[in-house]
C-alpha cells in the first residue's frame, strides 16, 4: 500500500502502561522549547533501542536557481567537524555507541537520524545540537565532498535511465514551482557550487525555530524533554528568510518530453497536477486520490497489475502513486514499461483506458473494501518498526500537518466512498494538466559486443 500519509494505530494493544497526557493512545508527547524547537517523543518499550531524528524545514524547494543541490550538499557537510568536534568525530562517536546514522534530503526538508542503544541518546542529542549551530567545514573539505555528491548524481541519475525520465518529467511539468529542480541538483550547478553557497545555506536555515526533534523508542518522555532543554535549549533562534509561495501557474495543455539513454525497454511516466492535503478536516479530494492510487496500484489485486501486466500483457510493469503530503505542488503519477513487442503508444493508451474506466464506471465495493483492509492492517504492521513510526511523525510535521492528526487521517481514508473516487478521476485527469515523459532506449554503441578478459591489463590485486 502506497499511502504516504502518516497514520495512526487502530488495532491497538498497549505496549506499556499508558501515561496520562498528550496522546495516550499514540503514546506520544510533545513540548516546545523557549527557542521554538519542538520535541515529539513516542514511547515504545519493546526493545532497549531508540531512534533520534532532527528535521529541518529546508529542502530543495527553498533553493535558488544556480545553486540547486545546496540543501543536499550541506547535508553531506554536516558530517564534517564543528567548532568543538574534529572532522570525522561525529561518525566515530555514533559508531562507538553501537549506533547507525544517516540523513536524507527531499524537496521539502532535510533530516538526520541516529539509531542507538538507549543509553546513548543523551550523547546523540548533544552531538546533533552541537552541529545545529557550530558546524565548521573547511573549503578543502567542501571541495572534496562536492566531488562525492557529483559521484552520487552520476550513480543515481546520470547512469539511471528511468531517473532521467523522472527528472525530465518534473522539469517539464513545473515552470515556476521549485519542484522543477532535482533534489540532488543539476550537474552544472554542482560544478559551480561554492563553500560560501553551502555555508550561507547553513546560516540561513539551521536554527531551532526551523527544526523539530522526533524520538521514538525505549525512553521516558519527560527525561527526553529535559535533555532537549539541556542540549538544544541553549541555542538562540534567528529569523528565517522569507519564503515566497512560487505557485505554479495553471497548465493549459499537455506537455510531452523524451529522453534518450542506453536501455532495452522504453519507460513511460504520466504526471497530472492534483491538490495536496492541506486541511485534514475539510479536504476530501486528497483522500479520494489516495484511494484511487491504491485501486490502481496498492495491493496484489490492483487494476494496473491485474489488467495490464497479467491480463492484457501490454505492460512489463505498471504503477501509480499519489503523494499528497507535500509542502508544494502535489502530483499523481502513472508509469510503466511496455511488454516486449508492445509500443509505448499502446501502453499509454492502456493506462489512459484504465483511468477512463474508473471515470465512466467507477470502482466496485470489493475493491474499495480491499484497499481499506490493507490500509488498516498496514498501520499495525508499521508498529513493528521504530523507524517507520518516527518517519510517520516527521513526515506529517514536515509539511505543516500534525502528528496529532494521524488517526484522523485513517478515519478520513476509511470514510472515502466509491463515488468520491470516481469523482476525482473525472475531475483531475484531464490532458490540460498532464505531462508525459518517455524513455527512448538507445543501443549501447560504446559497448563491446563480446567483452572478455583483457590480458593486456595487469591485475591490480
Amino acid at each position: 500500500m502506497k499511502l504516504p500519509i502518516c497514520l495512526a494505530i487502530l488495532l491497538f494493544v498497549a505496549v506499556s502502561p499508558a501515561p496520562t497526557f498528550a496522546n495516550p493512545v499514540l503514546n506520544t508527547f510533545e513540548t516546545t522549547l523557549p527557542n521554538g524547537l519542538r520535541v515529539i517523543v513516542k514511547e515504545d518499550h519493546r526493545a532497549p533501542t531508540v531512534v533520534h531524528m532532527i528535521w529541518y524545514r529546508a529542502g530543495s524547494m527553498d533553493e535558488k536557481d544556480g545553486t540547486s543541490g545546496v540543501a543536499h550538499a550541506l547535508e553531506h557537510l554536516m558530517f564534517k567537524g564543528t567548532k568543538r568536534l574534529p572532522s570525522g568525530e561525529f561518525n566515530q562517536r555514533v559508531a562507538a555507541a553501537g549506533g547507525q546514522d544517516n540523513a536524507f534530503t527531499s524537496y521539502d526538508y532535510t533530516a538526520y537520524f541516529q539509531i542507538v542503544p538507549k543509553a546513548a541518546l543523551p550523547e546523540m542529542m548533544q552531538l546533533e545540537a552541537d552541529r545545529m549551530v557550530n558546524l565548521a567545514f573547511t573549503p578543502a573539505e567542501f571541495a572534496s565532498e562536492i566531488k562525492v555528491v557529483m559521484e552520487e548524481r552520476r550513480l543515481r541519475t546520470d547512469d539511471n535511465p528511468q531517473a532521467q525520465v523522472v527528472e525530465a518529467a518534473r522539469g517539464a511539468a513545473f515552470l515556476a514551482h521549485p519542484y522543477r529542480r532535482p533534489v540532488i541538483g543539476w550537474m552544472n550547478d554542482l560544478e559551480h557550487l561554492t563553500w560560501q553557497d553551502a555555508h550561507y545555506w547553513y546560516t540561513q536555515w539551521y536554527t531551532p525555530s526551523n527544526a523539530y526533534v522526533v524520538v521514538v523508542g525505549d525512553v521516558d518522555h519527560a527525561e527526553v524533554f529535559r535533555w532537549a532543554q539541556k542540549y538544544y535549549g541553549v541555542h538562540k533562534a534567528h529569523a528565517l528568510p522569507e519564503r515566497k509561495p512560487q505557485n505554479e501557474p495553471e497548465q493549459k495543455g499537455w506537455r510531452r518530453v523524451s529522453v534518450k539513454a542506453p536501455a532495452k525497454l522504453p519507460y513511460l511516466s504520466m504526471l497530472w497536477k492534483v491538490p495536496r492535503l492541506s486541511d485534514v478536516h475539510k479536504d476530501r479530494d486528497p483522500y479520494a486520490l489516495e484511494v484511487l492510487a491504491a485501486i490502481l496500484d496498492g495491493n496484489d489485486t490492483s487494476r494496473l497489475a491485474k489488467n495490464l501486466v497479467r491480463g492484457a500483457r501490454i505492460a512489463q510493469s505498471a504503477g501509480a502513486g499519489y503523494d499528497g503530503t507535500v509542502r508544494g505542488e502535489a502530483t499523481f503519477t502513472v508509469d510503466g514499461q511496455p511488454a516486449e513487442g508492445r509500443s509505448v503508444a499502446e501502453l499509454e493508451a492502456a493506462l489512459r483506458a484504465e483511468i477512463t474506466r474508473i471515470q465512466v464506471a467507477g470502482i466496485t465495493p470489493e475493491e474499495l473494501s480491499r484497499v481499506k483492509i490493507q490500509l488498516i492492517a498496514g498501520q499495525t504492521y508499521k508498529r513493528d518498526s521504530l523507524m517507520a513510526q518516527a518517519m510517520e511523525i516527521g513526515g506529517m510535521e514536515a509539511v505543516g500537518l500534525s502528528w496529532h492528526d494521524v488517526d484522523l487521517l485513517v478515519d478520513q481514508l476509511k470514510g472515502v466512498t466509491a463515488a468520491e473516487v470516481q469523482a476525482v478521476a473525472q475531475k483531475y485527469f484531464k490532458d490540460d494538466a498532464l505531462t508525459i515523459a518517455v524513455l527512448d532506449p538507445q543501443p549501447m554503441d560504446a559497448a563491446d559486443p563480446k567483452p572478455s578478459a583483457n590480458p593486456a591489463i595487469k591485475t591490480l590485486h
Partner: protein
Amino acid sequence: MTTSIHLVVILGCRKLMTMKMHFVKTLFSFLALALFSAGATAGVKIEHWTTASGARVYFVETRGVPILDVQLDFAAGNAYSVPDKAGLPSLTRSLLEAGASDLDEEKLAERLTDTGAQLSGGVDNDRASVALRTLSAKPERDAALTLMHTVLSAPTFPQAALTREKERSIAAIREADTQPGAIVAKRFAAAIYPAHPYGVSATAESVAAITRQDLIDFYQQHYAAKHATISLIGDISRSEAEAIANQLSQALPAGGASVTLPPVTLPKSQTIKVAHPAAQSHVHIGLPAVRRGDADYFALLVGNYSLGGGGFASRLMKEVREKRGYAYSVSSYFYPQLLPGPFEINLQTKRSQVNDALKVVDDVLSSFMVQGPTAKELVAAKKNLVDGLALRLDSNAKLLGYLSTIGFYGLPLTYLDDFPARVNAVTISQVRDAFARHVPRDHLVTVVVATE
C-alpha cells in the same frame, strides 16, 4: 503479484532511496549481513523442534504488536537449478502464487488481500523463501495461514501464467543486461564461480527452455518438509506455533533426496573489463571466501569492519571517499553461504579516474592484509558490533531474518548469546591469519564495467 523480489538480507540504506529522498551516507549495510545478538539477549528466546514430517521449526514469541510472521525456507535456491535451465528455481517460487487448488491467480490474490496479510518471498543461491505477515487475531490469522497452506501444498502452475512470466523474465534480463550495476554483478559472479552453479545467471535462452513439467518436478523434488525450515515470530503461543508448523509442513510434497552442490574452486586472478557508455565505472573485486558456520567467520567480520564494513569508520571509505572524493559508495563485505560465499569490494567512480581509485583500493587492501587492523581499530570494531546488537534485533522483521538464517544454515541456537564473546575474543593476528586464508590475493578477480 507474482514478482519475486526480496532477499533475506537487506543491503542497506542506499537501496531504500526513492526519487524523493536522497540518503547520502550508506548505512552500515554490510552489518546487516552478519548475525547479531542483543548482548543481553534477554527477551530473544528461540524455541526449536522438528515436526513429524521432518521440518525444523524455530519460534520466538513476542507480544508487543498483534502480528505474526511465518517464513518457510527450502533448499531450493538458484544453485539447485537444472542444467541449462537457469532461472527455474526463481520461476518455480514466483509461480507458486499463480494459482493453487481451485483458486486461480486473481482469486488467490483477492482472498489474501481480504485477510489483510502480505505474502512475500524470494530466491537466492541457497534458498527459496515463502513468507507471510498477518494480523495475529484468530480470524485473520487462520484465513491467511489457510491460504499459505494452499499455496505451499497445491500449486497448479498454470501454463498461461508460466508463459507470461517467462516473457517478463526474459524482458527483465535483456533490460538488466544494458545496466552497468546489473552487468558488473553478473560478470563478477560468473568470474569468481567458473563452472559452478553459484556463478550461473539466467539468460533469455535458459528461461525460454523451462517447461511447466520442469516447475512441477522442481517443486516435488525440493519443496519438501525434510528440506524446509519454518521460522515463526509474533503474537502466538508455543502450542499455536506447533499447530501452525504441523499444518504447513504436513501438506508439503514428499520430496527427493537431498542434493549436494559441487565444491567451489578458487578462480584464477584476473581483471575483466567490459565496455559500456556509462559515466561511472562500476567495480567489483573479490573471490569466494567463506561459508556459514566457518570458524574464522568472527575474525573476518571484525576485521572487515575496519577494512570496508564499518561505513565511515572503515579504511576504504576514508581513503576512497573522504580523502579523495572518488566515490559516493565504497564498501567491502563477506556474504557467507552454504558453500563459500563471496568476499567483495564494490565501488562506482567517474570513468576517467577508475585506475586511480583501483590503485587506492589496492593499497588499502595490501596494507590491511599485511598488518591487520590497528589496536584502536580493533577496539572500535568490537564496540560497534557488540553494543549495536540490540538495534539489529529490535523488531519482529529483523529478528525473523536472523531466526531463518540460524535455522536454514543449522547454526547453534546459542549463536546470538555467544556472539559478544566470540567478537570480543578476536585478536589482530587472528584477523590477519583469517584474511590470509580466506582472501588469497593471487585469486582475486576484478571486474570493471564502463571503462576504456
